[in-house]
């Protein structure tokens, strides 16, 4: 230490302390950002009308409910089997049809495989719109259009999948190295042949992996879209909720939990193998 300080013996301070560049002044920007964040939060606080007293009051009234919720009635299990099966069926059908239809659409929605600018823009815009509508909203509209039951559920899951799959796969296509496609085109292949031979194999593993991911999302979604009447466990939830049968409700929720966790395990195992 002293050896280092020796050359500049006149300075009592650390060597080179004066030469150190001063830190850039970043605090004004930070203060502004923080102020904006606090302002938005304060606004949302007022808008959602935070009132802890009401919660506390309701909570003390809800003792009985809570007790029921923590004591699932397993004898109800038999009645939940049919809706449970329907939930799985809806998810499987929605995934199968949605993912099948999304494959050609993703090729239309990727710049790499669709040289037609206006068509590309059109497909992308439509898919963006399709994606930004939540599944439960689709379900509530289809329920009024085709009636309650599994069909409206399948239809809304289908659209929900289409949005996600087309986005994921077309982005994968955008990232593919296009040497193979170019070679195919140069040797006289049509665009369709080139995409089939050179592009499809590149995204196939991702396609399978995303399909499994979407199935997982679908199981999750199909348990709740029934709340607006689109079949499956959600309809059961709605029914037991209106009759205040909370010990049944907790059983249904427990089943959803088990189903989702099981599928998550399965899907992460399969996807890990696929990506390797």
């Amino acid at each position, binding site marked *: 230490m002293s050896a280092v300080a020796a050359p500049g013996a006149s300075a009592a301070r650390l060597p080179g302390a004066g030469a150190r560049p001063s830190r850039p002044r970043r605090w004004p920007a930070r203060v502004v950002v923080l102020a904006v964040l606090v302002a938005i939060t304060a606004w949302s606080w007022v808008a959602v009308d*935070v009132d802890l007293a009401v919660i506390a009051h309701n909570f003390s009234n809800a003792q009985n409910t809570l007790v029921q919720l923590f004591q699932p009635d397993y004898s109800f299990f038999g009645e939940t089997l049919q809706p449970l*099966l329907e939930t799985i069926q809806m998810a499987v059908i929605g995934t199968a049809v949605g993912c099948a239809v999304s494959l050609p659409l993703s090729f239309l929605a990727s710049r790499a495989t669709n040289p037609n600018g206006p068509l590309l823009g059109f497909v992308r815009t439509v898919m963006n719109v399709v994606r930004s509508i939540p599944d439960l*909203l689709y379900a509530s509209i289809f329920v*009024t259009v*085709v009636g309650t039951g599994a069909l409206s559920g399948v239809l809304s899951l289908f659209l929900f999948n289409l949005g996600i799959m087309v986005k994921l796969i077309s982005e994968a296509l955008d990232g593919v190295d296009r040497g193979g496609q*170019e070679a195919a085109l140069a040797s006289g292949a049509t665009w369709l042949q080139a995409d089939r031979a050179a592009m499809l194999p590149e995204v196939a593993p991702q396609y399978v992996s995303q399909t499994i991911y979407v199935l997982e999302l679908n199981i999750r*979604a199909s348990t709740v879209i029934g709340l607006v009447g689109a079949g499956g466990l959600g309809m059961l939830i709605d029914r037991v*909720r209106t009759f205040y049968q909370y010990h049944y409700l907790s059983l249904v929720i427990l089943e959803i939990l088990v189903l989702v966790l099981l599928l998550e395990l399965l899907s992460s195992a399969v996807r890990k193998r696929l990506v390797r």
Partner: protein
Amino acid sequence: MSAAPTLVAPGRATTQDRPRKPANVTRKALWLVVVAVVVAAFWGVDISWGALWDMPGKLWHYLGLMFLPPAWSKLPDALSATMLSVAMAWFGTALGVVISFPLSLLATRGLAPVAVRWPLRAVFALLRAVPEVVIAVLMLSVTGLTAFTGALAIAIGSVGTLGKWGYEAFEAVDGGATEAATAAGASRAQVMRWGVWPNAAPEVLAFWLYRFEISVRASAILGLIGAGGIGKMLIDNIQFRVWDVVGILMIVVVVVTMLIDQISGTVRHRIITGRWEVPVVTALRRRSARAARLEASPSILEDDSRSGTVG
């Protein structure tokens, strides 16, 4: 055949010389299982597929009712309901951030003992497994459903994802800085503050914003089961079949969701890369650059528009 120098049809000749594809039995078996499951689902489900026949006609009919024209006069109402939904999403996410941040630090390897870590991770996994709507339904039965309880449901739901993303980001931090801090005698809290946080901060901040985007969608959905906001207005109008109002509400939902995604995406990009990049501006700039290039040498027009990789 090897003597024929023609370029016309070499495909048929070479197929015999080509080595055969190895038979992949497991893959075939897997395909069989998948197909069987799908067929079983189609066969077993209680749907009369005949209803699909008049589906397109019906859909056109209802789309016409919704959008030809939508009830523009309801736009102010729709916007104020949307603001409530967005407020719900923001408040819920903010609360989720406040709760999940310390918890995710406590779930990070190297910063907390196993006895704290694993129970926390289990809680995160559990919260992620339950759909937000189900959390809301549970809260509805305990506390009654208002915009505030909707926000609480979002907060609880976001703790699961934010907690997981948080500890993953903290664990991905390069060990050098933490090691240096530890070597210099820092306490655990100081290691977190000076070794971990500066490295993980951009990613974590971006996650928070991304979660807000998800929450915006979730809050619209929560409205559908009664938590107020745009979803509540939607479900009321759907149930009373006021289709032109449903039309304007759907337009508002789509536009607002996209807008928030764009803004949030731009800010996230700024946080991660340190540069502003507004999507529309970038697209325009890219287009004008391409136009300039084409003007310079119009002969490459075809190749350039098809693929940028032509050497």
